[in-house]
């Protein structure tokens, strides 16, 4: 399997086998990212194919240090967009849908004001918050709400029981709500 740096070089040299090598190494990984959101193999595969195209258009100018993270961000965004389009027709039972409910139940407030905010500013605030957390709480939060992994899997790779992971995630969401309110975000 080719190293990430070599694959990135292929993109920079505009060699078309960049996509083949990316696919060989990351197809399954990216399919999992999309599948957690869409719960549909065909839609997931379409997102992964679109990811390769976006990577082709994005490298250069980007030179990602960790290719998997760079690609997963693209796939995640594409899959969430597809989820929203599909959800307007039908509900989708996916880990993303469950994660949304979990966030809604603890973090969504009753403010009737239309909140205008920058996604980047909010993301940076959440970054700062996550840095204050112990490793296990931070890893579980990112596993659940960034990768949308099922609770069972998050618990397994964080080395804790499912019940502990569930309660840790709940406490983290409550802490995040308090933190964002303190930072001046209207929830």
């Amino acid at each position, binding site marked *: *399997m080719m190293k990430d740096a070599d694959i990135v070089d292929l993109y920079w040299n505009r060699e078309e086998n960049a996509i083949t090598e990316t696919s*060989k*190494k*990351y*197809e*399954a*990984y990216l399919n*999992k990212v999309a599948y957690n959101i869409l*719960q549909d*193999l065909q839609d997931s595969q379409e997102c992964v194919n679109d990811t390769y195209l976006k990577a082709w258009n994005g490298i250069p100018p980007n030179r990602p*240090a*960790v290719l*998997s*993270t760079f690609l*997963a*961000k693209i796939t995640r*965004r594409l899959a*969430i967009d597809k989820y929203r*389009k599909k959800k*307007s*027709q*039908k*509900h989708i*039972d996916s880990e*993303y*849908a469950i*994660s*949304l*409910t979990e*966030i*809604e139940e603890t*973090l*969504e*407030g009753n*403010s009737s004001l239309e*909140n205008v*905010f920058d*996604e*980047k500013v*909010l*993301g940076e605030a*959440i*970054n700062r918050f*996550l840095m204050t957390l112990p490793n296990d709480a*931070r*890893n579980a939060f*990112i*596993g659940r*709400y*960034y*990768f949308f*992994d099922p609770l069972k*899997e998050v618990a*397994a*790779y*964080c080395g804790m029981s499912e019940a502990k992971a569930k309660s840790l995630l709940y406490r983290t969401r409550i802490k995040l709500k308090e933190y*964002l309110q303190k930072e001046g*975000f*209207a*929830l």
Partner: protein
Amino acid sequence: MKAEHILDSLAELDDDMIDEVDRLRSKRAVRRKWKSPMTVAACLVLVFSLALSTNAVSGALDNLLEKIFGIGKTEIVAEMAEPLGISVTADGVTMRAEAIFSDYYHMCAIFTLNRDDGKPFSERLYFARWSGGFPNNSEKTSTIKYVRDTEDYRRCYVCLDFVTSEPLEGQKLVVSFSGLTEITENEYKTIAEGPWNFELSLNIEGEILQIPTDNLKASDSEGTQYTFDSIGISPLGVHIKGVARYLHWSDGYPETEFMMKVKLKDGRLLNALGGMQIHAENKESVAPFDYTAFIDEPIAIENIEAIWLCNTRVTISNFK
């Protein structure tokens, strides 16, 4: 602020933090690769002893259902399940349709996968391609779930769920699987191409609770109002018909936020997330709808205390 905003903004997370979690995720996959000689030896003993028991799991439907649905749910599911035992072998992998169960709008089929060479399956397994449905019923949504047998890694279960807005009575499930693929650390490998084709008759069983709907109304967070003509609940899911008013349209689709939850007598609140079909062609603001959904897990009807239809609570015990 909406939950979507928070999840969207996580795209801005620091790459190092994401990478740290990613390493944990893949390390777990590596641990399952049977590198330790002791682990391999233990597994061979397990495989051998189970081979002697001649397909013990496949022969016992209750045991199989317990592995998939958990001990507490086995009885509920077993009452509805029709044992099948239809096998198809391709490329050294045998797929066996074990059981099927259904109410009028929900169906679940359970299959077992076995490798004929006795090797264990990878922890993550999926079919690259599968298609299925009911020849005379096009309105359907499906999900597929893979459950590894934790006591015998040569075996994996495949659960196929369908919800439909048209009654399933008299239907057959026609389904085809191909491209059985294993996922190991950052790579995937097709271990058998297939196809495995099945045609299965449905067996509709189980109690349906019809809830009186006189003057019952609910409204969702988008301001859409619902009046209900019929609400049926089975141990598997719900089927609702009614009329939606004040529909908002966006990009040619009605924006509805209808949601349903089931409150059990033990205090648990289960989701019934599924498909809302609005029967409108010209962006009408009033249109008939039907909503079909699986409940999070199979339930005994007598254990339901109430249901929530968006913001409206309906106490079930009043109707029993």
